[in-house]
């Protein structure tokens, strides 16, 4: 490309920018709407990506296999002795019993997740890994000792007090003493957790002796998880077997384009795009026709006029794309997706505090670009051609 043709292109671009400035209000409106659409699309994509990626990283150490008992399509308690039946399956390293459930706090409408476990790791280095901000874990034989999150402490309005009580199903009260607090950095998984011993959880939920909520199976060789899961399924009839891969797969699909908000964002974007395209394709004003006529008389070619319209569309769409994308990153990375947070936290009373750090992916950038800028440019191509082919003598 010679310097002459570059100069010609720059001159046309300059003229396009002057033309945009002449219709400033209209173009600023298009720019704002376009940038808003891209902001929502990109924000949704970044929030989804950040949450999906966080789940994949954090839940990478979830139990190899979770075994639950089903009855009439619903989960019920499983006989703890089922662990003995499973112990014969080659490849199983260990089986942990666990009682867990939800506790609805009528005083504030919050749902807590109560987890009762044998805590053999008390006193071991593993206890350090649990990341308690203060205190310790309950020992196996201790009664009524719990570890909770600071979030729950605030909801229970305990202040400096260490004791609180929860209701059993028969409405009698079970008293607990807080002996440890989860670190605030762990809120994304512990915001609503009350950790206690297996015996205390059994007592709170009135689960009969010999029953637990589920069994956590750990397999020595990760390659054998599916095989072991199949054997467990054959051994325990009516059981539901959930492998770690299934858990991770769930979180891969749970925040995606098929989810409600994704659909809403996409439909909004499409609606906005249709309006823009309609506006562009709805014909030329008398003034625009006159401008084309004058330019043709001055020696502009049809290709120059098409390029002129292309420059106008490209300028608006590129500026809107980059501005919307920058705002989306600021929204998600600096404000942790504040606009979307009420939507994905829903009506939760206990709301975890966590920060989002989405990974950058070129394919996401291209996806937003392809969904927004390219269709806009395509939609403006036909009107640009129509404008460029106006006969000069018919409008002057």
């Amino acid at each position, binding site marked *: 490309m010679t310097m002459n043709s570059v100069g010609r292109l720059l001159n046309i*671009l300059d003229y396009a920018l002057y033309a945009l400035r002449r219709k400033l209000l209209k173009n600023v409106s298009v720019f704002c709407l376009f940038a808003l659409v891209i902001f929502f699309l990109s924000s949704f994509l970044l929030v989804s990506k950040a949450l999906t990626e966080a789940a994949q990283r*954090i839940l990478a150490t979830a139990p190899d296999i979770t075994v639950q008992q089903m009855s009439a*399509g619903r989960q019920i308690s499983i006989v703890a002795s089922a662990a003995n039946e499973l112990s014969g399956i080659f490849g199983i390293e260990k089986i942990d019993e666990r009682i867990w459930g939800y506790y609805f706090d009528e005083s504030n409408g919050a749902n807590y997740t109560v987890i009762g476990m044998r805590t053999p790791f008390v006193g071991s280095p593993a206890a350090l890994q649990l990341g308690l901000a203060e205190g310790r874990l309950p020992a196996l034989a201790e009664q009524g000792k719990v570890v909770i999150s600071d979030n729950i402490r605030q909801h229970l309005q305990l202040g400096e007090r260490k004791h609180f009580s929860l209701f059993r199903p028969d409405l009698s009260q079970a008293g607990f003493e807080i002996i440890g607090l989860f670190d605030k950095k*762990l809120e994304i998984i512990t915001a609503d*957790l009350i950790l206690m011993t297996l015996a205390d959880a059994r007592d709170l939920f009135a689960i009969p002796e010999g029953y637990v909520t589920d069994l956590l199976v750990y397999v020595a060789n990760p390659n054998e998880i599916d095989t072991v899961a199949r054997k467990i399924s054959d051994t325990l009839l009516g059981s539901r077997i959930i492998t770690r891969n299934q858990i991770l797969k769930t979180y891969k699909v749970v925040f995606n384009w098929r989810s*409600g908000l994704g659909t809403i964002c996409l439909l909004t974007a499409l609606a906005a795009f249709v309006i823009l395209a309609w506006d562009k394709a709805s014909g030329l004003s008398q003034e625009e026709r006159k401008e084309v006529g004058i330019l043709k008389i001055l020696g502009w070619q049809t290709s120059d006029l098409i390029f002129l319209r292309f420059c106008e569309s490209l*300028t608006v769409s590129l500026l809107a794309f980059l501005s919307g994308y920058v705002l989306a990153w600021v929204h998600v990375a600096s404000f942790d997706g504040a606009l979307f947070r009420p939507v994905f936290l829903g009506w939760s009373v206990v709301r975890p505090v966590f920060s989002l750090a989405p990974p950058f992916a070129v394919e996401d950038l291209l996806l937003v670009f392809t969904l927004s800028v390219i269709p806009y440019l395509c939609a403006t191509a036909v009107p640009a051609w129509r404008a460029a082919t106006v006969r000069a003598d018919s409008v002057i």
Partner: protein
Amino acid sequence: MRPSAGLLGVLLALAVLVSGLVQSTASKRCTQEENVRLLQGVVFHLGLSDLALSTEARYTRHPAISDSVVVSMDHPGAIDHFPSTFFWAPIRR
């Protein structure tokens, strides 16, 4: 200055801004790495299966191990009314 030069300057500034934001988020991710290891430890020792994002209902608190059909699970004909399910997609295993 030519208007086209101004435009290129603005586009370049926006591109640099995007790159700066991506870079700063990447360093934020690096500082979070230690926290992720801590979280993995808790998940491992407590056998957790889900993130505590939305605590309003059991199928939003534990999507990985909740019932496979959530709509109408609590009451016949009950619609899926929690706002968070606008965000959470149906699960297909």
